[in-house]
């Protein structure tokens, strides 16, 4: 088509008047009449006009629109991060000692002895405890520290645990007690056990070291697991083994008990993948028309919000609620059976997975750009109330990486025929929401022990910082490999910016970890992870991924070929004519 339409142009170049031959009546071939000089000049001008457009407009446009912008990426740095050469995550935990009743020299001695015992016990050098005698000024502050400590802005390490030594009479052996709502461990000891300064390994310090070791066993195992899952850390053979006697995380994994390892892997499998923002969706489902309302707002404020508040350094949360009446279970789901012994309708444990009617219940998989954690409060029909799980008589269970379910059996009204109450008060909701808060903790990956919530959150902060550090590093590695292997994809400038932001935040994360400032490390790691994801999933980069160079022939030739051939032939003819005329001139002179 276009070739055809080039005709007006090309016909001018080739159908010069004097160029036309003419067959005579007799059919004898006459020589075409000689071309006039002005006809030659006109032809030259026509060809020049076309080529001027091509050269002065066409080529710049071609250059401008098809050149691929590739911002420079620090490939070497990115690969080093991915290989774990840039940073070896370490977790030096600072533990403060408060010894109100001991003279300073004795306290120092006890500390040194305990530290020594701890170092002997520890076989995982990336995670180690550093004991410190807290100054008098800090004591008052630590007492009323309820939730988590504020991120230390002054460059001091986070306090992982405060150990307070209290003498108590009438004790045969020391005993310890972890406060459930602070990060304080009270150790009571008989005053007689104060070690003399000469004793090398007093029993009190051995006891404290053992307690501390126990407290941190699970965290250590989780971190070892995380580090060994990604090849970063100690297991990489290329990693510099500069640490004097650094032990591999696998050693730690081997040393922990199989039950603990099992529970850790199970919990890791159950918990949600880390996200910057989680959506919590609380849904009330009931097969009938009642209950139609619930005090969900006050319940969430009472039981869930404090927990979410405590999680703010780790993730953000949004909360949605809904009530769904006449929510029937799926037709394929097995029906509950009445159990005489329990006097309740029971669901078999293996049938719980079919309990959620995923096809009909409006449980959106995700709202916006974060994963949704669903909490389902199910009020059974009066005819099937109370409903429990057969094996354990439990009323709640967790659905791994998805959410939790709670069967609420409110007291039925004692009218002619029993019915559910129309409204669920906050008091009725209490057991359900306590269960939900517990399920939320598990789904977010908090360790099961010990009892202190702030302590578990601190553990989670350290684990998340490590996870994000490793994940952002490996994303950097993938991005580096992608850009290396596909030289034809464009790299926009904002990807380069994101990469440099990621790398700088990774560096500061690593620095914070080394200094023991875990909150700050997590904050930096979150930024690094977000930027790394953004750079890797940049839309304009992937547009041309599957576009080999051979395809360009198919793009250019069909249109530009037909246009180009007459133009090039015209140009060649013209060049030939100029050369011959130049030669002729030379011969004449």
């Amino acid at each position, binding site marked *: 088509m276009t070739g055809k339409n080039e005709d*007006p*142009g090309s016909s*001018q170049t080739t159908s010069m008047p004097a160029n036309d031959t003419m067959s005579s009546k007799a059919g004898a071939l006459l020589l075409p009449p000689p071309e006039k000089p002005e006809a030659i000049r006109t032809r030259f001008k026509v060809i020049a006009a076309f080529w001027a457009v091509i050269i002065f407009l066409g080529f710049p446009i071609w250059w401008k629109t098809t050149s691929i912008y590739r911002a420079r990426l620090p490939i070497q740095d990115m690969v080093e991060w991915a290989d774990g050469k840039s940073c070896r995550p370490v977790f030096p935990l600072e533990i403060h000692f408060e010894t109100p009743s001991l003279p300073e020299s004795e306290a120092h001695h006890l500390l040194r002895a305990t530290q020594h015992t701890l170092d002997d016990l520890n076989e995982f050098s990336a995670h180690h405890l550093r004991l410190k005698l807290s100054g008098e000024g800090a004591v008052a502050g630590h007492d009323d520290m309820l939730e988590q400590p504020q991120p230390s802005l002054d460059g001091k390490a986070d306090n992982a645990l405060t150990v307070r030594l209290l003498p108590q009479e009438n004790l045969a052996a020391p005993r310890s007690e972890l406060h459930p709502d602070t990060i304080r461990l009270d150790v009571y000891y008989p005053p007689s056990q104060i070690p003399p300064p000469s004793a090398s390994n007093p029993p009190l310090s051995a006891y404290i070291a053992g307690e501390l070791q126990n407290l941190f066993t699970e965290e250590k195992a989780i971190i070892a697991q995380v580090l060994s899952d990604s090849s970063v850390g100690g297991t990489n053979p290329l990693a510099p083994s500069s640490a004097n006697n650094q032990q591999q995380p696998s050693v730690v994994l081997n040393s922990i008990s199989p039950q603990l390892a099992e529970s850790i892997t199970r919990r890791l499998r159950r918990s949600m993948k880390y996200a910057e923002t989680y959506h919590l969706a609380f849904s009330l489902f009931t097969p009938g028309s009642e209950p139609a309302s619930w005090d969900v707002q006050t319940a969430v404020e009472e039981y869930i919000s404090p927990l979410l508040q405590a999680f703010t350094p780790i993730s953000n949360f949004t909360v949605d609620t809904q009530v769904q009446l006449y929510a029937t279970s799926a037709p394929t789901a097995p029906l509950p059976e009445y159990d005489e012994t329990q006097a309740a309708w029971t669901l078999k444990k293996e049938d719980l997975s079919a309990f959620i009617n995923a096809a009909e219940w409006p449980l959106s998989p995700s709202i916006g750009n974060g994963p949704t954690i669903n909490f389902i409060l199910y009020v059974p029909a009066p005819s099937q109330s109370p409903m429990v799980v057969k094996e354990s008589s439990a009323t709640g269970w967790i659905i791994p990486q998805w959410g939790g379910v709670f069967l609420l059996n409110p007291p039925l009204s004692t009218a002619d025929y029993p019915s559910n109450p129309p409204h669920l008060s906050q008091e009725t909701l209490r057991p359900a929401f306590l269960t939900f808060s517990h399920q939320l903790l598990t789904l977010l990956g908090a360790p099961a022990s010990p009892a202190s919530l702030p302590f578990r959150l601190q553990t989670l902060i350290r684990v998340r910082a490590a996870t994000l550090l490793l994940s952002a590093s490996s994303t950097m590695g993938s991005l580096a490999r992608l850009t290396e292997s596909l030289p034809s994809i464009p790299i926009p400038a904002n990807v380069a910016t994101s990469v440099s932001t990621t790398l700088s935040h990774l560096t500061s994360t690593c620095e914070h970890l080394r200094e023991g400032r875990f909150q700050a490390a997590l904050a930096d790691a979150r930024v690094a992870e977000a930027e790394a994801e953004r750079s890797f999933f940049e839309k304009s980069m992937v547009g041309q991924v599957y576009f080999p160079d051979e395809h360009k022939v198919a793009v250019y030739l069909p249109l*530009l070929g037909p246009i180009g051939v007459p133009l090039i032939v015209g140009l060649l003819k013209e060049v030939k004519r100029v050369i011959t005329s130049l030669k002729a001139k030379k011969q004449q002179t």
Partner: protein
Amino acid sequence: MLVVDRRQAAVFAGALALRLLLLVLFPSLPDLLTGRVEVSTPISSFKRLQEGLFLYTRNVSPYDGGVFHQAPLLLPVFALLPNAREFPLPTALFYSLIDLINANALITISDSGQAGSGRLFSALRKHIRWDGVSIAAWFLFNPFTIATCLGRSTSVFTTTGILYALSNAVSGNSLNAMLSLGFASYLSIYPALLFIPLMLLCYDRRAQGSRLPAGVAIFAVQHLAIFLLSIAGLLGISCFIVGDFSQFISATYGFQLLVPDLTPNVGLWWYFFIEMFDSFREFFLGVFWLHLAAYVGGLTVRLRGQPLFVITSLLGIFAVFKPYPSISDASLYFALLPLYRHLFPLMRYTFFAVSALLYATLLGPAFYHLWIYAGSGNANFFYAITLVWSLGLSILLADTIFAALRDEWEQENPEMRGKEARQI
């Protein structure tokens, strides 16, 4: 000019009556034609104009909503007319009058005789010609023109601008010619490409007169300044009307240059850019626009003696290769073509070209219906027909250009007149 030619009055009255009769007999015809892709393109659709008008009369920027892409100067004009939905007659009358004005310009062009003989060149057969009224009748009773008029496409205003630029140029009024071309370029960018041949036409016309103009370069610079000033003035008024200058520029000229709307039309761009890889889109936009622009230089140089013919041929080329062409562009080309009645004997493929055009005209709507409404065809059906349409127009173009060259050649070689010639 009080003496009105009776034939001309009859033709004009007949054309007006025919348009109004069609409107009265088939009241739904204007709306039907307004919706046809052959008549209405995104940059000339009357429906979109009404949307812009609605927003404009309610003091909202007409370009909000991304539907309206036409020049803002049309809005105050159409705001004066009563609502076309309730009172279709005034709008139809307005469009018919525009057609008559265009025909009047055509008569002026034809009567000047510039098509047959200019300053540098005079055709051999210039006695074979139609008079102005016949050419006006040919334009006014052309079904494409009637369809455009009833479909109320705003491209008729561009047509007016171009035709008045030509009529002023051939009557030696180069200032008005430049102002008219500025108006046409302001409405839709592509007429700006006609500047060089139109300037040469003005120059030749001036040189024919009593006093010789200074030099062609000075003349060109002067007229370029007038042309640019007229555009700048119109843009200034538009800015005053719309307020937001950048939004107005990107919604009108950005839209025409970058072709984001790939609604099917009779042109070649939409299908090509649907198929094109995204990363090459910008490059091929450049190629297509350059392709359109590249003909200007070559044709002007080659046919320096006949600038009016260059303009005619360029209008034909635009009708094929414009980004959003419609039958209104073809009707403009067909309006100017009879000025070259003396070339018709030299043309060789008239039958083929006319058949291809008729074939496309009849089958185009049918295939469009099969594709969009019946669902039994696909986009290729309609695209194939637009290819035939473009092929017909290109053959016609190539044939007329060949005839013009042959005419020039016969003048240089008088002994060859009337003999077979072969292009080598």
